[in-house]
């Protein structure tokens, strides 16, 4: 009898210990989940584009659309896209128009008021290409003007560095606040002078966005960088800026682009050079974007909190299927490492829903047997599966812990937001 009593005490202690451990682990998990929620509970990606030198808003819009299309093709789910416009202030915008008009008048007096050639020549548009094919003189004129504009852009950029443009920053900050308030991850892409603005945007948004912000610098006109960057060796604009101060070393050797794939004489164009699929910078661009997304995912993968970061359990035939659970990653352990901790969920639909709001599926309710129904599990490194068990005290013997069901399930975490 005494022996039975001792055994009972030991069993009670064992069960209580187990329950205490389970409860403790559960509350730890809840706390971790709350912390992870702050870090990882995002609703999509906000793509922000900061345009380069000499862009009109329509050009900047087009660059944003091209960036978006490229990312969409690669399966990146962008929920919101905006461009943060900054106008290029030459020595007075009108001066450039006057210079162009004067040159046109000198070379081709009858054409002096054909000012559609201003944008056409700068961008080598459709009409400019037709004219270049028909007239060597025009081709020389257009080439000469684009070279001149390269110098103007260098001069403009060299003056911009260090000059604050507070009203522009404030407008940009308002939009960043909206994106942060909407719980969006921020992917900011900047080209040329846009890098000066994106650095300010980053400094402003980083304390609020935490790790949910990534910057990709393209042809940076600033040595200050807040993320990976891409710079072609043939970028004459950035190269010329070296005379005014330090700029980053080039990352891609593209040489002189053949006329067959780019007529950009400056080597600086966002679409003509950097996002041109024939340039090595294009693959580099996509590699860096992927890397930024992997960084986002590494910080949040396995949290079980994001909408799609859900462990999918195969339908179970067991009477007591494992139900609520969430996955947590601790801040000191990378989520993609071999250690992913399994949190616990109470085994009732109501409790699971109330306490673990991130549990996506609660398929059954077996609470009628006992309120001590729990799911536990751990990731099996050898198989790559999650070994999940549903357990609790025996309905017929409160001192007996039994596993009602267990299952080993392959899982995939959809890292995309």
């Amino acid at each position, binding site marked *: 009898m005494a022996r039975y009593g001792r055994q009972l005490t030991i069993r009670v202690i064992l069960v209580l210990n187990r329950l205490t451990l389970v409860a403790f682990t559960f509350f730890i998990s809840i706390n971790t989940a709350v912390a992870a929620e702050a870090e990882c509970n995002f609703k999509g990606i906000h793509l922000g584009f900061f345009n380069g030198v000499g862009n009109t808003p329509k050009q900047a819009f087009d660059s*944003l*659309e091209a960036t978006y299309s490229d990312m969409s093709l690669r399966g990146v789910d962008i929920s919101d*896209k905006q461009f943060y416009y900054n*106008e290029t202030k030459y020595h007075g915008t009108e001066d450039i128009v006057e210079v162009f008009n004067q040159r046109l008048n000198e070379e081709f007096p009858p054409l002096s008021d054909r000012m*559609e050639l201003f*944008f056409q020549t700068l961008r080598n548009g459709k009409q400019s290409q037709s004219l270049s094919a028909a*007239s060597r003189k025009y081709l020389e004129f257009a080439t000469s003007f684009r070279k001149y504009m390269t110098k103007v852009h260098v001069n403009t950029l060299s003056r911009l560095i260090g000059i604050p443009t507070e009203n*522009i920053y404030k407008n940009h900050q308002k*939009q960043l606040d909206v994106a942060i308030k909407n719980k969006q991850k921020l992917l900011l892409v900047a080209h040329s002078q846009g890098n000066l603005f994106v650095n300010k945007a980053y400094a402003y948004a980083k304390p609020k966005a935490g790790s949910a912000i990534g910057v990709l610098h393209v042809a940076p006109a600033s040595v200050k960088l807040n993320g990976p960057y891409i710079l072609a060796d043939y970028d004459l604009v950035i190269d010329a800026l070296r005379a005014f101060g330090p700029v980053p070393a080039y990352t891609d050797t593209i040489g002189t682009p053949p006329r067959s794939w780019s007529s950009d004489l400056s080597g600086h164009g966002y679409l003509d050079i950097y996002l041109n699929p024939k340039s090595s910078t294009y693959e580099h661009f996509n590699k860096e974007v992927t890397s930024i997304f992997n960084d986002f995912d590494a910080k949040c993968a396995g949290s079980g909190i994001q909408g799609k970061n859900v462990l999918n359990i195969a339908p179970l035939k067991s009477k007591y299927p494992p139900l609520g659970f969430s996955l947590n990653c601790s801040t000191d352990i990378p989520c993609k490492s071999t250690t992913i901790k399994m949190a616990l969920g109470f085994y009732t639909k109501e409790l699971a829903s109330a306490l673990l709001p991130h549990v996506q599926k609660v398929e059954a309710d077996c609470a009628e047997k006992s309120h001590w129904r729990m799911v536990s599990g751990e990731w099996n490194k050898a198989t790559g599966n999650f070994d999940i068990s549903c357990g609790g005290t025996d309905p017929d013997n409160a001192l007996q812990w039994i596993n009602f069901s267990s299952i080993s399930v392959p899982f995939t975490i959809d890292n995309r937001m």
Partner: protein
Amino acid sequence: MKKTLILIAVMNLFACSPNDGSGVRPAEETMEKIFGKMEDSGKYPVLDRTDTLAGIDENKNGIRDDIDLYISKQGFAPEQEKAIRQEAAVMQRSVTIDVKDKKALAKLQTDSGISMACLSYTKFGENGSVRGSSLALDIESLTANTKKRLKNYLAYNHTLDGSVWSSTNYKGNPCVK
């Protein structure tokens, strides 16, 4: 055989030389003539160069008649043409706007965002291979085609410095019905 080859070589030499024998390239046609030919053949649009910001819009559809004609010659499908015209009307307002009229500026910026979003929404080229937003650049240059219009357009752009634009703010089809 050898003599024949030499003869061909000599003939080729003459064929490659300037026809006046001066060693100087033949004078290129004047740009005026080149433009004339291109405009006659339809390779280059005949544009309105009247001295006003608005130019001529006889049918009062908000698009300058020369731009209207240019669009109709591009062979767009009806939905595409509609999207381009929406953008062309916004561009026309952009070159004629009074930049001191803040209310009009705000309305134009909104409408400009919508028309660009419409271009992005509409599929161009085979399976949408052409970015609709890129077509706006053609309309932009052709509409701002005189010094007066270009300067006013750049002044309008100046007012947009620091603005933030989106094409995802417009749910569903952003094109004007």
